[in-house]
């Protein structure tokens, strides 16, 4: 099985530079949403997304912010290729989700997406290194190569010395760093973080946001989903969501 994805301008990995909009080649959009609607069946049906238009280009760091019930979770599922829109178009890394079956969506997640969850969701039976390496398991990467790349990813989040520790032996902040390393180990087109600081105290949360900032500086595309405006303020671009629609989309000059 092979998934055909169309690219408008090159591959996402091919254009890691950001902030070069004056360039003749605009960075490739890694996420395109056009009038995306998601309805959950019920009486009456719940319209969680009500016509969302959103573009994210490679190398961007975007915070999606909104109160609970604004459609954040549903948007996360769309961007994360965990679910398909009812109507409209969602393209992730060039692939139209509506045209993919479950196996193809899985392939897209395995090769183009990295997830960071609020509760870390590390596998308790595995060391930090093996947890990170698990991010490559579904690509069929051999074990030794997985561990090499996992060690590399752990070093990028500043946790090389904790590689052999089990999740229960790590602090919350350290566990979230392991989760971030797992998300980036495969070099994804988008890193998707769902309330990544929600379970951490303020100062640890700031450290985690700094990790994301550093990754952004090296060209990683990051979509941060949060209800917390102070968290959102760390991103150069903030998209506000309300009642399933994009309420505001503000680009700031990077600090």
């Amino acid at each position, binding site marked *: *099985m*092979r*998934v*055909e*994805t*169309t*690219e*408008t301008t*090159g*591959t996402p990995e091919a254009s890691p530079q950001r902030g070069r909009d004056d360039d003749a080649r605009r960075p490739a959009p890694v996420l395109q949403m056009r009038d995306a609607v998601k309805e959950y069946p019920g009486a009456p049906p719940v319209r969680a997304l009500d016509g969302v238009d959103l573009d994210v280009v490679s190398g961007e760091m975007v915070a999606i912010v909104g109160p609970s019930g604004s459609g954040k*979770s549903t948007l996360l*599922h769309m961007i*994360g290729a*965990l*679910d398909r829109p009812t109507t409209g178009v969602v393209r992730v890394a*060039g*692939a139209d989700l509506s045209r993919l079956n*479950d*196996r*193809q969506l*899985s*392939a*897209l*997640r*395995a*090769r*183009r*997406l990295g*997830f960071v*969850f609020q*509760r870390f*969701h590390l*596998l*308790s*039976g*595995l060391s930090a290194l093996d947890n990170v390496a*698990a*991010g490559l*398991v*579904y*690509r*069929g990467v*051999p*074990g030794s190569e997985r561990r090499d790349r996992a060690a590399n990813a752990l070093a990028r989040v500043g946790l090389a010395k904790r590689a052999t520790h089990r999740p229960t032996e790590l602090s919350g902040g350290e566990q979230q760093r392991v989760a971030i390393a*797992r998300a980036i180990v495969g070099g994804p087109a988008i890193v998707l973080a769902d309330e990544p600081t929600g379970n951490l105290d303020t100062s640890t949360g700031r450290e985690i946001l700094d990790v994301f900032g550093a990754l952004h500086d090296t060209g990683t595309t990051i979509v941060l989903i949060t209800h917390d405006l102070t968290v959102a303020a760390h991103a150069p671009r903030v998209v506000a969501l309300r009642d399933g629609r994009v309420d505001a989309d503000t680009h700031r000059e990077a600090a």
Partner: protein
Amino acid sequence: MSTLALAPTRLRPGDIVGQGFVGLRSKRLRTLLTAVGITIGIAAMVSVVGISTSSRADLLAELDALGTNLLEVQPQNNMFGDATELPVTAPDMIRRIPAVESAAATRTVEGVTVRRSNYIPTDESGGIAVLATEPNLLDTLDATLAHGTFLNAATGSYPSVVLGSVAAERLGITDLDGDPLVLVGGTWFKVIGILDPAPLAPDIDRSAMVGYDVGQELFGIDEAPSTVRVRTDPDETESVWSVLAETTNPASSSDVGVSRPSDALEAKAQADEALTALLLGLGAVALLVGGVGIANVMVISVLERRAEIGVRRALGATRRHIRLQFLVESMLLAGLGGVAGVALGAGITALYANSQGWMFSVPQAALLGGVAASLAVGALAGLYPAARASRLAPAEAVRAE
């Protein structure tokens, strides 16, 4: 527009097994307790098969030692249902068959009992038969003496008696100290020998043997034998068997019955198989119950690990990968129980065989079959939980806590 091919997800076989072990390792106590059910079932089945095989192997070894080349010739009722006799010439005729190594005739002495003293009524036999026998019975049976000597041409003419093992026990004679005497009919006989148990001739065990001459002289027995025991060349048993009736009584061979005592022992071993089958059935029930336990635990495990399933789906696992993961975990769980069960069953067999003085024997098929059966039970038990895990929508699973 360029097109980019996105390779499908792929999970290495080694990783599938590895994941299963991780799943089991993170819940050690539960793994242990769940596997115990399978262990008990498999151990029960393996030990039942092992003990029955060891017992049979022992019996067959014993039969081999006793020899399957001993035949027994007896008269049988004729077509009118009347009792017949063997011809007086039968022993000599039989001895003339080339492949016959030896033949010994015995004659039951009817209406005569053996007693320790005068105070016991004459009609109280104690289940002991009196046999007049030729001296070569001992060699023909390949029997051995516990004490004393057997009858010979000389002692066979005097009131001497040799007791079978059971007969001696019933008479309370354990050895020849003090030259014990017994009353045979109305005459005191000297006990000159006591036999070891003779597995191929249980009737000899329960007999008191006297010489033919004495039998004729004191009890007036007929010379015609009631039984002729025939030891053949081991390779010629069948051919001797086929001519034995004809040789014994050329005039009326249908009055002659030929049997092989070792066949009866073998039949006894076969009869034990009914019990073995019953015990095997019980083991299978234990295995089934163990399988239900595994299914139960796996269903709970799927519910508990919704978050893990969500994470794995987010990392790119397909439904099939999730299904495989839980199926393999279930099989590993049962397989661990099965391996432990096979080891335990073999251990029980070894202990039991040792206590019985048997040689240890468990068929390889039982060992491999035990592990295979446990894996099959694990696969069956894991089917439903695995299907349930794979049906979980990824969006729903990642939200689970």
